[in-house]
């Protein structure tokens, strides 16, 4: 089990957050690519949400046609570089690799993908073509992966594109929300810059859309609008003492970390509440920031956690302790957090029940709530006839990604409640095609 020293410099931060999927060198890529069997109707293609022709790009890497490999990748996935390292490949393409059936390590598809696109991006190879102008304009709300993918695809179809982004950087959770050992800020921003330079879409930063008037104006100025707004802040748990200093949402914690790196001070004892992938990331990150004790607390059993097994293992290997079958009752402390009061839970006749006779306090200085992000329901209310169901998840046609208001299209976390970058990339691309189809009817 790793013991991490609190990082005090950028170099120490980098050491603690060493990349899980480091960039391959030419020799490694050559040998790894040589292993691909070029399966017929390859299962890895099926397993990729964007259906990249994986055997083709691997063969292209092997024959030293790296630019061709990048074209193959970007043809299916506009965020091919980032996805190579942030995708949970073990449960997607690499999980489907036929080698697994003979206990042979699967091809490292993600790293090969990242290798090819990185080379092409660094060489500033121009491989995309802007479509002939069709005289129509699209507005995109949110410069996250869904929005960027939609913009790229729309430009190849000849649309003018303006992206409205609330923050001052593009790429959404890729830069604000993904664990730093999966991808660096530089790499995320490099890819967006590469795409933007060739495809010439505009991003208006610090341009949050929050009012009906803004939306009305947008509807007048543009032929179609794509909503790539993701999810909101961490939702409240409605616990006593939740407002104390030292209680923070996981999304906000990770954003702080991604922006401040070693300058973020993480105290000695941390409790992370939740059992999803974000909880695993937050716990792992707290430990890597030098917290002496990081406790992951989940209300149900280990088996019931939504997190991928490999994400849990990663947290444990970073020195995180776990508590299962515990539910938080209140945050204790005098003005500032001193601990979390938990009750044990048990499953009775298939139902999770809290045992109020069995309570205890875990002392800590920081509580990270990784219990889900709030939906953007209030924002959706500003759009006429937008059907977001009861759960504030936008409903779309699953081929065109058109919403119930025909002028609006949507994709990414806003329509799936929170999934992978690769899903958002697919949605954005398909939505641009959906818009194209709709406007050319």
């Amino acid at each position: 089990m790793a013991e991490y020293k609190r990082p005090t410099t950028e170099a120490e931060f980098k050491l603690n957050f060493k990349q899980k999927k480091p960039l391959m060198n030419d020799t490694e890529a050559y040998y790894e690519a040589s292993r691909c069997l070029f399966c017929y109707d390859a299962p890895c293609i099926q397993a990729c949400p964007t259906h990249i022709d994986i055997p083709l790009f691997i063969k292209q890497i092997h024959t030293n046609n790296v630019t061709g490999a990048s074209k193959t990748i970007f043809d299916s996935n506009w965020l091919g570089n980032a996805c190579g390292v942030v995708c949970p490949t073990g449960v997607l393409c690499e999980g489907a690799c036929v080698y697994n059936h003979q206990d042979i390590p699967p091809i490292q598809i993600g790293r090969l993908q990242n290798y090819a696109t990185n080379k092409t991006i660094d060489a500033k190879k121009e491989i995309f073509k802007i479509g002939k102008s069709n005289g129509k304009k699209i507005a995109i709300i949110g410069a996250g992966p869904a929005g960027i993918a939609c913009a790229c695809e729309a430009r190849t179809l000849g649309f003018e594109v303006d992206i409205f982004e609330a923050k001052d950087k593009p790429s959404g959770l890729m830069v604000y929300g993904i664990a730093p050992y999966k991808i660096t800020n530089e790499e995320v921003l490099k890819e967006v810059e590469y795409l933007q330079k060739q495809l010439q879409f505009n991003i208006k930063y610090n341009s949050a859309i929050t009012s009906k008037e803004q939306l009305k104006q947008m509807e007048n100025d543009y032929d179609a609008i794509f909503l790539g707004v993701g999810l909101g802040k961490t939702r409240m748990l409605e616990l006593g003492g939740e407002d104390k200093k030292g209680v923070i949402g996981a999304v906000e914690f990770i954003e702080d970390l991604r922006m401040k790196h070693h300058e973020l001070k993480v105290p000695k004892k941390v409790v992370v509440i939740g059992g999803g992938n974000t909880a695993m990331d937050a716990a792992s990150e707290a430990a890597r920031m030098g917290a002496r004790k990081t406790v992951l607390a989940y209300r149900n059993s280990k088996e019931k956690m939504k997190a991928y097994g490999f994400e849990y293992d990663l947290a444990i290997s970073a020195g995180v302790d776990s508590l299962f079958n515990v539910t938080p009752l209140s945050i204790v402390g005098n003005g500032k957090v001193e601990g979390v009061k938990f009750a044990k839970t048990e499953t009775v006749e298939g139902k999770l029940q809290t045992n109020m006779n069995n309570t205890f306090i875990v002392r800590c200085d920081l509580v990270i709530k990784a219990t889900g992000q709030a939906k953007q329901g209030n924002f959706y209310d500003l759009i006429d006839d937008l059907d977001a169901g009861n759960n504030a998840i936008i409903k779309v046609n699953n081929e065109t990604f058109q919403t119930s208001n025909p002028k609006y299209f949507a994709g990414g976390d806003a329509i799936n409640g929170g999934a992978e970058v690769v899903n958002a990339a697919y949605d954005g691309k398909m939505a641009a095609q959906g818009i194209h189809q709709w406007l050319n009817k």
Partner: protein
Amino acid sequence: MIDLSINFAGIKAPNPFWLASAPPTNSGYQVMKAFEAGWGGAVWKTLGVPVVNVSSRYGSINYRNTRMMGFNNIELITDRPLADNLREIEEVKKYFPDHAVIASLMVESKAEWEQIIKDVENAGADGIELNFGCPHGMCERGMGSAVGQEPEVLKTIVGWVKEAANIPVITKLSPNISHITDPGLAAVQGGTDAISLINTIKSIVGIDLDTYAPYPIVDGKGSNGGYCGPAVKPIALHMLKDLAQHHEISKVPISGIGGIETWRDVVEFILLGATSVQVCTAVMHYGFGIVREMEAGLRQFMEEKGYNTIYDFAGKALPNVTEWKHLNLKYKVIAEINEDKCIGCDLCYIACDDGAHQAIALPKDGSNRIPSIIEENCVGCNLCSLVCPVENCITMVKTDDGTEHITWSERTLNDDVPTTFDDDRAGGKGHFVPKPTDALKNN
């Protein structure tokens, strides 16, 4: 008790593993190092009037992750003075009197042949190998393969050499010829004591896509080279077989050369009649130590099969290499897929469907990716078992009961072969093939 020693046309060696005449035998240092490592003999880098070489000299073909599957060179014979080579041969023989040191020679005139033969005999060489094979550079000057491709000239020179030599003479043949038996027979008629083959094959291994020059590139230009390495083994084996099955040529021993790298290669050459083997590319790739694997494997094979010397099994495969017309047309195998081993790559499916006989089906319900053999369509071609990446997953199973045996030759005698374009006796008549338009449905 296994005894690997050989007596090859009078040349004695502790084992059949010899270094071929090539860069690894350029100096006494290398040959001594090789003998220390376990090689039984060495054919010295060809001696003659020293040449001037170019830079660069080698090119190669890689296959997937394997380097130098095929190798080519444009290096000529020795560029060192004869006296230096002779002195080193003498020194090697002093340290290794029981190992075979064979002098490869290439000169032009009868007088030169007589002189150089006397020189190498004086230096203590155990035998002579005549380089009639080199297909680049030297042939432009009327030597090497220029001789190997002209049986009459070859016979004459072998005659000169035999007249002058007191030690055994091996004639090394070029594969750059339609019928290897022509120069083979000429060598025997000229009186050669043994034959070695193959020398390298005329080749261009590739073209540089920026300079448009062939590899290896010498200042923006290139020349054809001599091809060798694992890729040429099948050609070498076939030519060896042609000589070893020839009633006249087979009277002399044959030293096998061409892509030998492992013990299996060695055994295969011996099974087709070679009684010594020569290696170059494998040493240029892995060093002299590669002989460890060859020797250990050969010993293991001999132990398991109960052979004491290589002569116990030399040529044992020759009776089984026959003409196509003598193959049993009633023999039938079909493929069988081991479902437990199958990993679902479906390469067998697509290989069969696109490249063979449409005899493999994918599961219709899509429940898994394990293909199945359509037995009535399977012609037993082996393709699926060859492309399958899993060890022993697809096997070819015999389905005929072994009671019937008829060959093309026999059917011809019985007047039972197709003779017209639409003859009912065509082997493929009635055999299933999908409709041409079925190809469009699959897409």
